[in-house]
């Protein structure tokens, strides 16, 4: 019966391989292509419906982001001053802001194509940068880079750079200025006020 044990062992190993998280550049490639494919077909998103875009982002994109780390990096030194309750609220509000912004950008999509740049990593690395290029007719291609870290439940994005401008770094200046003005609560209030303006609401998680 030993051969049967061998077969079962082989099956278990294969199942393990399938359950393993995707490699980071494969993840970026698949999610990007999937999202753009949907946007290309969806007339409502193309005509500016942020609501539909938010639903799309919520379902397909958000699960791959590490919002806690992003918020921590954006709030920077002031993060340690915040209570766990404030940290939780900050993360939720920043997540909403990013979802709305990302969704808005998707409604402006006009048939650009994305190329993933050649990517190499060591098997033991837990923090990587995946570089992509947005091709658009009549203008220079734009660099779009993703920074991912390896979490127990897969690779998660914690920063995006567009044309060399880091999302997290850009928000860091604004957040620092807000905290100087009105403390952590002031920053939370500003974010909440901003997230209330405009049309669609983001589903809470």
């Amino acid at each position: 019966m030993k051969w049967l044990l061998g077969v079962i062992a082989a099956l278990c190993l294969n199942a393990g391989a399938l359950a393993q998280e995707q490699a980071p550049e494969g993840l970026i490639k698949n999610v990007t292509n999937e999202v753009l494919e949907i946007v290309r077909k969806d007339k409502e998103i193309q005509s500016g419906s942020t609501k539909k875009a938010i639903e799309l982002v919520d379902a397909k994109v958000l699960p791959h982001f590490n919002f806690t780390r992003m918020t921590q990096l954006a709030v920077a030194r002031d993060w340690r001053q915040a209570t766990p309750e404030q940290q939780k609220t900050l993360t939720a509000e920043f997540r909403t802001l990013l979802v709305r912004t990302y969704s808005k950008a998707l409604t402006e999509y006009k048939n650009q194509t994305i190329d993933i740049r050649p990517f190499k990593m060591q098997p033991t690395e837990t923090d990587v940068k995946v570089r992509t290029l947005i091709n658009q007719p009549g203008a220079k291609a734009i660099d779009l880079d993703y920074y991912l870290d390896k979490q127990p439940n897969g690779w998660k994005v914690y920063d995006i750079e567009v044309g060399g401008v880091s999302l997290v770094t850009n928000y860091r200046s604004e957040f620092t200025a807000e905290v100087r003005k009105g403390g952590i609560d002031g920053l939370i209030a500003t974010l909440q006020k901003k997230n209330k303006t405009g049309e669609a609401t983001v589903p809470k998680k």
Partner: protein
Amino acid sequence: MAAARRSEVDGVDNLLSRRVSLLPVLACLALLLGGCATSGNPKDPIEGFNRAMFGINEGLDKVIFKPVATGYDVVLPSPVKTGVSNVFGNLDDAVTGVNNLLQGKGKDGFSDFGRVLLNSTVGIFGLFDVATVIGLEKHDEDFGQTFGRWGMGPGAYVYWPVFGPRNVRDSFGMFLDWYADPVVAVVSDVPARNIALALRFVSRRAQLLPADKVIEEAALDKYAYIRDGYLQRRRNVIYDGNPPREKEDF
């Protein structure tokens, strides 16, 4: 102020030991322009002046630039807009080539001239960007970047109405860009030249319309968002897309 400028993460400064300090000149200029308060922000020493200029530009944009650009964007079909953008882009490539050579990047510079030659002939006066199709990448160089490569420190952030964000060094670069403007060199008839310059301006403004909407959504403080994005972007282009990532220590 000197300490704040040394901490500016433009590592090109390390290449040459001598740096031109224009900050005192600019500070005087700011004071002369009406005694706007200087803020404590080390990367934005003349923030008061800049915010005022930003306000003026927002006003002009709302009333003139954006409506005209929106009209242009809505009325013209995509291939026409792409053609217009390509023609001006082709002229820009000549200046990019010159700047690449001035920075000692011969291969890139000759590639840029190759682009101009190809696009002007096969691409029919620049209407079609065939060079990109065959693999000659479009580069982005200007006199501000050249001065940066030569070791000139960026100086204070400056916001100009109409022209937008610069720093002191890039403002000098901008003046030189005007002097060496290919549209001015190629179009000698003044009324035609003015139409060409206006068309280029509208074309560029129209290309930024999608970004407008995203910035409105993304920014807590539109002025600061644009400033910080600009400062990061300049750092990036001077390093030609490979700036060292700032260390995080929190």
